């Protein structure tokens, strides 16, 4: 408070030849040192937290790792009575649903990012679409799950039935949609990662220097030639990191999937049969699990942690590097 005080009353004192500036007192130096330490503790706590997370989840998974070993990753049954646990179907379901969702949500997200950054729309209309994307991001996962159960599943059932009855030999349509299943889960997941992809891609496209766009138009390109041959390739690494981080989000998404995917431990290409993911296995089994199953679930949590950490570290590293490189230009 001292600084503010002297600043306010300091006006007239200039005339007297006094300066309002003065070296910090002993007390102020002391406070400063402790302030620095407190802030450092805050920063260090974040590092401690991530270490603690790895330690706690890793530590709790150790008994299961000792019991089941690496076979846990390749076995397909989840049988509590026989204490026979394997998570291959969940790993498959996690990757399959995330890739499909990325294919849909990623494409739409990138197109929206191009649409919003490349002068297609008057700024007011662009604001409407931007608001829509931000509101999609704000809607909780569990609400999307509820909407999926009561809107998406009934809405896609006719199409799913038609595809199954006419093309049952195509592996994607080899079973009928009896309720929850891969397809509704993927659609909702795609909607949920769309805002992530769109936001980061927009940033990447904004970072492309204006002179590059001008140069392309100057050469006589059409609007889309400039976008597809010049702007998107220039922003490619940024857009790639958007896809990686969107994929990371899809991998860890829990509630909407737990409500929509059907929680059935099977490996299938069919889009209409129920499946399971690592996160929804935990969501649906953990609350009522006994000690033995809980240990196996901790192992599954560790696997999910490892997969998502790798994907997120990769995405963040690419993004940090490209942002730095483009900012230098």
């Amino acid at each position, binding site marked *: 408070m001292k600084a503010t005080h002297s600043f306010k009353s300091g006006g007239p004192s200039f005339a007297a030849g006094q300066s309002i500036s003065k070296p910090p007192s002993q007390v102020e130096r002391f406070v400063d040192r402790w302030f620095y330490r407190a802030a450092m503790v805050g920063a260090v706590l974040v590092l401690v937290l991530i270490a603690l997370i790895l330690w706690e989840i890793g530590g709790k998974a150790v008994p299961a790792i000792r019991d089941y070993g690496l076979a846990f990753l390749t076995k397909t049954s989840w049988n509590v009575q026989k204490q026979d646990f394997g998570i291959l179907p969940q790993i498959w379901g996690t990757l399959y649903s995330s890739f499909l969702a990325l294919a849909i949500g990623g494409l739409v997200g990138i197109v929206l990012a191009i649409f919003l950054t490349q002068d297609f729309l008057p700024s007011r209309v662009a604001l409407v679409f931007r608001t829509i994307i931000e509101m999609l991001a704000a809607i909780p996962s569990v609400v999307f799950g509820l909407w999926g159960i*009561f809107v998406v599943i009934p809405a896609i059932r006719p199409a799913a039935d038609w595809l199954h009855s006419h093309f049952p030999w195509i592996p994607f349509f080899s079973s009928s949609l009896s309720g929850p299943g891969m397809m509704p889960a993927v659609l909702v997941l795609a909607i949920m990662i769309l805002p992530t992809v769109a936001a980061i891609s927009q940033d990447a496209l904004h970072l492309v220097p204006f002179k590059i766009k001008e140069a392309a138009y100057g050469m006589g390109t059409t609007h889309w030639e400039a976008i597809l041959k010049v702007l998107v390739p220039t922003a490619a690494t940024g857009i790639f990191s958007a896809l990686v981080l969107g994929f990371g989000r899809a991998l860890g998404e829990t509630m909407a999937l737990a*409500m929509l995917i059907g929680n059935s431990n099977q490996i299938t290409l069919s889009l209409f049969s129920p499946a399971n993911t690592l996160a929804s296995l935990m969501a649906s089994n953990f609350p009522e699990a006994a000690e033995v199953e809980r240990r196996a679930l901790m192992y599954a949590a560790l696997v999910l942690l490892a997969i998502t950490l790798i994907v997120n570290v990769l995405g963040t590293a690419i993004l940090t590097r490209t942002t730095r490189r483009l900012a230098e230009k």
Partner: protein
Amino acid sequence: MTDIPHRPNMGSLSGMVPDLRRNIFEPRALWNVILTGAAWIIAIIAAIPLASVLYMLFVTGGARLNWETLTELPTAGFEMGGGIGNAILGTIVMVAIASLFSIPIGILAAIFLAELAPASPIATATRFVSKVLTGFPSILAGVFSYAAVVVIMGTYSAVAGGVALAILMLPTVILTAEEAMKMVPRRMKDAALGMGCTKAQSVWLVTLPTALPSIMTGVILAVARVAGESAPLLFTALFSNYWLRNLTEPTASLSILIFNFSSMPFDNQIELAWTASLVLVLIVLTFNILSRLLGRPKV
């Protein structure tokens, strides 16, 4: 244009000036139109889910939105009526606990990152970890809180739920607060230092007050994000059909209520789930709009 209209005035020049207008039926121009059309269609398709969600929320959820629903306890099974009062209270309490943990730590860390030692190894590591944590699966925050709080306390509790939510809030608070403090003009901080302020005084008296609106934006965004979270509460706060009496017992929350009721065979519970969704979305959107209003650049 295939046929250039004859312009007598241009004389001999007409042969040298290229025609700069583009023929719309030229393949590359046609592609341009097709792709623009496709982009429009995709953008409009992307708007459909939001419209559908909002429609369902206001029509189905709005039907039961009344004082009784907001203040009463949920009923069991076949009984009609009931409300979501305890879930609203539980969500608010747990978000408050999460804020209590994450905001002070987050802002302290952000001060270190933005002002005190931006290039130090600790700051670089913290910044990177925060960015990685923004994509951290929320259910793993629940697993961590289960292992670190529930197992040690021996009971599911609001505190355990709050801790799990705090982990999810922390990165947003740190990263947005750091950005906010970096936006404070350098000359203001230098002026304070030049007058003999210590670094602590310049942060406390100049940087923080100036950056406060933007910091608040980040905090409110973080609150909005975790208010809707359910995965981390599944096995930390669990659920309860009764009012919250203390912080060390299982606690209801809106998101878990939606999850539990969505799979019940009773219409009454499904209706309550929709109303709870509407209330939850309204809470989240209110916080989002609040942060937008606060975050409007003023300088």
